[in-house]
């Protein structure tokens, strides 16, 4: 009799213990960061990036640079930073095509940089080979991304590419906030290489490009001043 009673009671105790273990082992609430000791140390009064601030009328702690300020960056491969002065119009697009020249010469390092930027910024729409068949097109999220070697784009000058990256074109948005001046020109080097590969032209027709760009630079400058 005692033996039986022991079994039953033990069972109840063990069941209770197990239940409490299960309950307490349940994961902590994902919506709460948990217990904080001295929260002042975590959330100081200083403004944090992307935080709120009652100091400014728009409530944001992050401020925009003063309009007209020119970014400086530590890239000794670049001669200077040039503010972009072509307007976001059809005339600006044409003028950019005539007036802009890539400040970088083709080199393996620049191509490697361009490739890595391309694989982050462009590949999901334009595809690995620039044929306009990126993963988003394959998955039917996006349609009508042109191939770099299509009739419309096979002769596109670099200036128009830059203009397109800067302002966006048709359904492509502006990528100026994501890649800076140097990166835009680096990725254009890679786009040119993809296009040359796709068209079956050997890349390295750089000398002609420079020869053309010397004359177009003059024309571009004329157009630019005319627009002002």
């Amino acid at each position, binding site marked *: 009799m005692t033996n039986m009673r022991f079994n039953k009671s033990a069972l109840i105790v063990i069941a209770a213990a197990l239940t409490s273990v299960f309950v307490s082992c349940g994961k902590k609430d994902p919506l709460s960061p*948990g217990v904080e*000791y001295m929260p002042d140390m975590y959330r100081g009064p200083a403004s944090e990036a992307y935080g709120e601030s009652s100091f400014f009328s728009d409530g944001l702690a992050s401020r925009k640079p003063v309009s007209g300020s020119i970014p400086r960056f530590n890239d000794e491969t670049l001669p200077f930073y040039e503010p972009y002065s072509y307007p976001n119009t059809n005339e600006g697009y044409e003028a950019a095509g005539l007036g802009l020249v890539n400040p970088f010469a083709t080199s393996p390092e620049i191509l490697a940089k361009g490739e890595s930027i391309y694989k*982050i910024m462009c590949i*999901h729409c334009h595809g690995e080979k620039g044929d306009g068949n990126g993963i988003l097109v394959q998955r039917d999220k996006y349609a009508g991304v042109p191939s770099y070697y299509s009739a419309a784009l096979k002769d596109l000058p670099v200036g128009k590419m830059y203009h397109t990256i800067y302002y966006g074109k048709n*359904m*492509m948005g502006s990528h100026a906030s994501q890649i800076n001046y140097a990166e835009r020109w680096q990725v254009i080097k890679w786009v040119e290489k993809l296009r040359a590969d796709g068209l079956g032209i050997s890349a390295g027709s750089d000398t002609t490009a420079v020869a053309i760009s010397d004359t177009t630079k003059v024309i571009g400058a004329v157009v630019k001043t005319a627009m002002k």
Partner: protein
Amino acid sequence: MFQTLQYMRHIKASIQKLLVILFTILVTSTVSYSQDAAKLFKGNCASCHKPTAAKLVGPGLLGIKSRWPDQTKLIAWVKNSTEFLKTGDAYATKLYNDYGQSVMPAQALSDAEIIAVIDWADKGGDAPVPTTPTDNKDGVVQNAPAESNNTMYILLGIGVLLSVLIFVLSTVKKSLEALLNDKKGIVVVPKPERTPLQSFRYWASNNKKLVAIIGLFAVIWVLKQGWDGLLGVGVYTDYAPEQPIKFSHKLHAGDNQIACVYCHSGVEKSKHANIPSANVCMNCHAYIQEGPTYGKEEIGKIYAALDYNPETRKYGTNQKPIEWIRVHSLPDHAYFNHSQHVKVGKIECTQCHGPVDSMEVVKQYSPLTMGWCINCHRETEVAFKDNKYYEDLHKKFVNDPKYKKGDKFTVEKIGGLECSKCHY
């Protein structure tokens, strides 16, 4: 006379031949082109037009024939819009001005191809596949966070069921015993009445060893819980707050394979891996107006924040920031720089942030405690290879006789454990 007849026959034959050729051309062309109309549309037109009434860069093409009664004009317009504009056509000029003077690029298509595409698009294209909010073709798990709770409830339920079973069976057993005793004529001496507490004490005094063991475990368990609880103070691991927009990293970074740096483009240049501003969302979502999981609801919140009207494709002035909730937060007295780790240290995002590309709701993967930082600084070797940033330092160490070739060179050795590296 005979000559004329022969001449007539000759003409007849050539006309027949011509007709046959023309017919074959017509048949083959219409067949192949109408089959390819959808493909042609996708390849040449879809980046700016939809086959429905919806506007993109240009107007939707549904019912285009009624707007362009003269087909030759429409073909000329598609083939070279800039040239056609010069003819001063009123409707074309109106279109050009209505759609922000964006030039439709000249399309290198044949007349038959253009007609095929127009016929196809005029009727609204292929019947569009409706994408309802419940459309779950991307295999998005919607209730992922609730799963752990469910397991707990199931276990609790099983526990309750089992206890009920025990109670019922013991009652049955008791009454059966009573019945048996009654039959055998055994008179059972009734047990002394005890309160539950008294009966527990009675049982405990009879089973001292067992009580001692259970007690010991209970004490250890309580201590362990307390210890873990204290260690968890200020550690936010697994913190996964609900965000104002149900943005799915699994869908964007996982299924659609968009690189982390596409949106967090500051990670290699700045202390912060920036939260993308809404213009980055709009790079895709000006086109993609409906998501596979929540339809227009969540993407609509981006439009609301930007005061953007997807119908007119215009931005208003009443723009508000999206109030994302911060997941990873280091205390003010600890300095951390993303570019130092990602660009210079060449650490992968996933090493600290975990498999974000499979997270429906982003959670904090690493504890971000000081011990965790220090541990990594002790174990990680400095990425000297092809690293301009460490060029001078590398030379110095190579020339130092203290170090041999092939020595493990961790972050600790270049001062990665100095207090003032992170606390200043």
